């Protein structure tokens, strides 16, 4: 019950200014998270202090009431010896009251048994359903190497817009695009730059900032599905149509909202043919071409930082 109750007057909570300070603190935290850590810390302090004062204010009536002396146990209600059972406010009125010494009457046992069995049954039913619905999150997906055809299709120093089926069993819906550049040889080993076209902001497909030579298009049919190769000249790097993220030819972010560089595919040379495997994330790339130093991280979703303090927001990643 409320502390004060007027006759015919509606309940109105006492006006309090603490919530305003509390709200300001929350805003300060949120802005601080983006702008600066000290501001967020100040916001947290403000929130805690005002929250405490608010709760204290609201619960004041209850706490004051507690001070009122309560009649000692064994007061008027339980005073009379051998009094009849309390009024039949509960549904057990029809049943004989428990024996004085009986601590665990049958009705309580039945109630407990019903609830206990019921929850066991509910659990047995729920666990497989929940597991079934969230299982894909924790499943490793096996990606076969995707054969992209002979490496002679990739002229040295030229970007080739390559589309292929990531998972041939899924069909066209798994068609992915990579921007592949042959960097020539490094220590007699061929070097390729294989950029994923997935924007590191929110996953839209980035486009080459420059012409694509559709007339030089090559269609290859490999054992992992159809592959199309279109040479391109992304002189201005790559740009995302969704929110304007810009990248240079190494996939480094140059402008816009992306939080890191473009992801890359691991690549293999098999009998003179180029193949791609898993993707990995890249914070940034130093240098260019064959001598580039790639700062490589485990594959991470778009919009997630892989370095800097913001990476602490993503300590765990679902398997990919």
């Amino acid at each position, binding site marked *: *019950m409320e502390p004060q*109750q*007027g*006759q*015919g*007057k*509606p*309940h*109105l*909570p006492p006006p309090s200014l603490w919530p305003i300070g509390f709200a300001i603190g929350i805003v300060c935290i949120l802005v601080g998270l983006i702008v600066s850590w000290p501001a967020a810390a100040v916001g947290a302090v403000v929130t805690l202090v005002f929250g405490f004062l608010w709760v204290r204010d609201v619960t004041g009536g209850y706490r004051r009431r507690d001070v009122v002396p309560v009649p000692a146990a064994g007061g008027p209600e339980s005073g009379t010896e051998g009094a009849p059972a309390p009024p039949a406010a509960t549904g057990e009125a029809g049943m004989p009251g428990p024996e004085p010494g009986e601590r665990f009457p049958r009705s309580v046992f039945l109630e407990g048994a019903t609830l206990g069995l019921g929850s066991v049954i509910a659990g047995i039913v729920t666990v497989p359903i929940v597991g079934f*619905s*969230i299982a*894909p*999150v924790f*499943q490793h*997906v096996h990606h076969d190497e995707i054969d992209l055809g002979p490496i002679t299709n990739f002229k040295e120093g030229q970007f080739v817009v390559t589309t292929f089926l*990531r*998972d041939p069993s*899924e*069909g*066209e*819906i*798994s068609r992915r695009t990579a921007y592949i550049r042959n960097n020539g040889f490094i220590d007699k080993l061929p070097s390729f730059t294989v950029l994923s076209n997935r924007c590191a902001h*929110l*996953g*839209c*497909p980035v486009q080459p900032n420059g012409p694509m030579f559709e007339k030089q298009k090559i269609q290859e049919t490999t054992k992992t599905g159809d592959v199309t190769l279109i040479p391109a000249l992304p002189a201005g790097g790559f740009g995302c149509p*969704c929110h304007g993220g810009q990248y240079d030819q190494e996939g480094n972010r140059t402008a816009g909202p992306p939080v890191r560089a473009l992801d890359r595919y691991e690549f293999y040379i098999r009998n003179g043919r180029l193949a791609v495997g898993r993707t990995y994330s890249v914070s940034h790339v130093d240098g260019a071409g064959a001598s580039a130093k790639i700062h490589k991280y485990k594959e*991470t*979703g*778009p*919009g*997630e930082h892989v370095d800097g303090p913001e990476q602490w*927001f*993503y*300590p*765990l*990643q*679902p*398997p*990919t």
Partner: protein
Amino acid sequence: MPGKRDRKEQMKAAALYPLDWLEERSGLVGGIKYFLFRKVPGDSGWWHTLGSATLTAFLVQLGTGVILAFYYKPDPNSAYQSVQHITNDVTLGWLVRGMHRWGASVFIILIFFHMARVFLFGAYKYPRELNWIVGALLVPLALLEGFSGYLLPYDQTAYWATVVGININGTAPFLGPFLASFLRGGSEIGPETLARFYSIHMLLLPGAILGLIGLHLYLVVRLGVSSPPWSKEAAGRERDEPPAVPGSGLVNPSPRGVTKRPD
């Protein structure tokens, strides 16, 4: 003419008999009367119809959605074609799809008008706080309906908007990547994504929304409609005449005596 009157009485009894039969066995007639013929404040007006308008918009979504599901195929290879089939070939399919598509926006807009009305009228105050909370739970469910329904036509806009939407979820701290993975049904958007969005859109969320709307309406009926703030009878103001039920500060005390408190 007594004969004619007798026959009139007989006709009336025959007409009412099914209702009486139903009432005696279920109490439904009385329940519906109790639900529909409630007392409302004398100065409630058009503003108070926004909730019913929202409910109507939801029922339209429900009806058109069920019919669209007759023809829609939640499979990446045929989803787009089935939507084209609905739009171009099925009789009045364009109309039903249009109602569902535009009605979705109407539903969301009406929700926020209704919310604004409740907020500006102060109708969320005691004893209706719980109903505000139920409504505040309905808002994100309605927005999720919009989000999950947007993928279903499976055109370029739908696909990339969903990619962006899922990845925005993925950037939430700590559990975000797992949430995104759950929504995709794996690490990549594929057939599973469309199937689970379809299921979420037409089974999970409508069920949850229907349940919460039921609770919402129950609380409206139990607590009654609040007066507008300019009302002379508004809660929280001194009244000239004594309240209808002694000990109650409510304008419309419910018949079940919710407001009866020990004084």
